[in-house]
């Protein structure tokens, strides 16, 4: 491997391994070296697991050379946000409350990635219990943005975004309750896929909010997200929120392009959420490019953002408080200040507010679903960007702004964040493609067509091309 260049994507590594041109052991050693070499600057990992990784890589290499290749992900490194269980490893959720929490079994998602032959490199930083940070009063520091380490990585799948953007890992698992896959993707310039609620199992993943939590991948490209979802998606009878629906072949439709598709551009929705002129221009250019590629792009109106926010900011804190109330009352000092205060807000939600939010949620879900009777996908922003300075990130108990992303946690539809340009300060800007429930293949197809034509993936942070 030439360490002067960015490491291969999931799809590139897969092709090289299949052709016998890349050794899983070499690839794993390179990932371990990058992880160790960059972690002082990025704080992406809570724990790096070299012994386990080397043993898995050796097994993968022996299997592949022996003609027992399990599939396209065999022998390729990955990482887990540290709320995912991996048998025998700690799951800390970035909290001192869980410092001694050793997982007795794999999360369903971990088990699927392991069965696919992937090589776990380590557990990745989050914000405590997957709430939005950053916090500086925890046993582990917050992750930093590889494009500029003075800047925020976005919400809680922070180590996942940093590790993928820095070229340490081609795949890192995240979780998304209000945007925590898509915001690190947006701020770190990666792809982040929040699948439909119910598409990917949450069993073995530390919960934040039962009815909003969604597990999914962060990757460098849309094709990589499709490859990962192929393994991750599917019914889990031990997850009560899991949908028992067939899983399509995501790769077979990925390259079908957008000719004939109708894309609803929720321009006003982004504008109303505070997207600035620079990012709005990038989104307009994305809409124009999709039109040039053969899609019909029409402006659509989503319900007011404050309705989505009222739903998300009632349900999420209320459910989180239910999970944490005992610790918040008995040992509040164990949490970081920002986590404690944000979780405590959930204790102020009344039963009537919670029920009203669930009623409004159903109305909003139906309204968004009705847009898909006229459109195949929606285009909007993820969050007003680019990434703020870490030192200037809102760490108050009440976030002054809520990202656009949380609208689609409230409604459950699949949504993917991907780069749509760069700000004047060199940081990535991001767009969001949203699809019908359980129609991730259209989301991936639209995003792939845009990504290939726009070419933003060729630009990586300088850190990603440094020698390991």
């Amino acid at each position, binding site marked *: 491997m030439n360490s002067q260049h960015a490491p291969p994507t999931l799809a590139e590594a897969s092709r090289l391994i299949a052709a016998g041109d890349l050794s899983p052991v070499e690839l794993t050693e390179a990932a371990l070296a990058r992880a160790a070499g960059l972690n002082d600057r990025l704080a992406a990992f809570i724990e790096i697991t070299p012994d386990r990784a080397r043993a898995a890589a050796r097994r993968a290499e022996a299997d592949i050379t022996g003609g027992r290749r399990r599939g396209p992900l065999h022998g390729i490194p990955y990482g887990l946000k540290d709320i995912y269980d991996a048998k025998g490893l700690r799951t800390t959720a970035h909290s001192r409350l869980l410092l001694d929490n050793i997982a007795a079994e794999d999360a369903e998602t971990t088990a699927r990635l392991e069965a696919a032959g992937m090589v776990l490199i380590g557990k990745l930083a989050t914000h405590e219990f997957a709430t939005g940070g950053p916090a500086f009063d925890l046993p582990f520091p917050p992750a930093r943005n590889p494009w500029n380490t003075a800047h925020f990585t976005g919400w809680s799948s922070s180590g996942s975004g940093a590790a993928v953007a820095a070229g340490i890992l081609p795949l890192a698992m995240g979780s998304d309750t209000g945007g925590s896959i898509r915001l690190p993707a947006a701020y770190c310039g990666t792809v982040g896929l929040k699948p439909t*609620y119910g598409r990917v199992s949450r069993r073995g993943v530390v919960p934040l909010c039962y009815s909003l939590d969604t597990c999914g991948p962060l990757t460098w490209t849309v094709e990589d997200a499709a490859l990962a979802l192929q393994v991750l998606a599917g019914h889990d009878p031990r997850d009560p929120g899991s949908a028992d629906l067939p899983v399509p072949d995501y790769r077979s439709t990925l390259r079908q392009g957008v000719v004939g598709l109708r894309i609803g551009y929720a321009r006003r929705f982004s504008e109303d959420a505070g997207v600035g002129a620079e990012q709005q221009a990038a989104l307009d250019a994305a809409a124009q490019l999709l039109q040039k590629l053969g899609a019909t792009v029409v402006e659509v109106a989503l319900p007011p953002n404050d309705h989505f926010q009222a739903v998300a900011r009632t349900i999420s804190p209320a459910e989180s408080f239910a999970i944490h109330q005992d610790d918040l009352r008995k040992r509040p000092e164990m949490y970081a200040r920002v986590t404690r205060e944000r979780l405590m807000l959930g204790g102020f939600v009344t039963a009537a507010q919670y029920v009203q939010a669930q009623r409004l949620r159903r109305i909003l*879900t139906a309204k968004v*679903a009705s847009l*898909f009777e006229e459109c195949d996908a929606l285009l909007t922003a993820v969050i007003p960007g680019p990434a703020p300075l870490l030192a200037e990130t809102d760490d108050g108990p009440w976030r002054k702004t809520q990202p656009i992303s949380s609208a689609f946690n409230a409604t459950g539809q699949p949504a993917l964040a991907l780069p749509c340009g760069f700000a004047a300060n060199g940081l990535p800007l991001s767009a969001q493609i949203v699809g019908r429930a359980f129609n991730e293949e259209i989301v991936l197809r639209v995003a792939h067509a845009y990504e290939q034509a726009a070419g933003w993936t060729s630009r990586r942070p300088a850190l990603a091309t440094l020698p390991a």
Partner: protein
Amino acid sequence: MPTPEDSEFAAAVRRAGLAIPAERWEAMRDAYFSMQALLKVLDDPLTYADEPAVLPDLAPRRGRR
């Protein structure tokens, strides 16, 4: 003399069974009222037929084709 807002927030803290340090009281009080302001939209009238979502209504629907 506490204002009605002070009393409302103090009652909410008691009902939740929480202890908030004095130096964070004002920040939490502001957060509480910011949250209540956003949640005002939940007071808009709904019909009897508008039932809660137990989980998101994600029954696969036919698209436009």
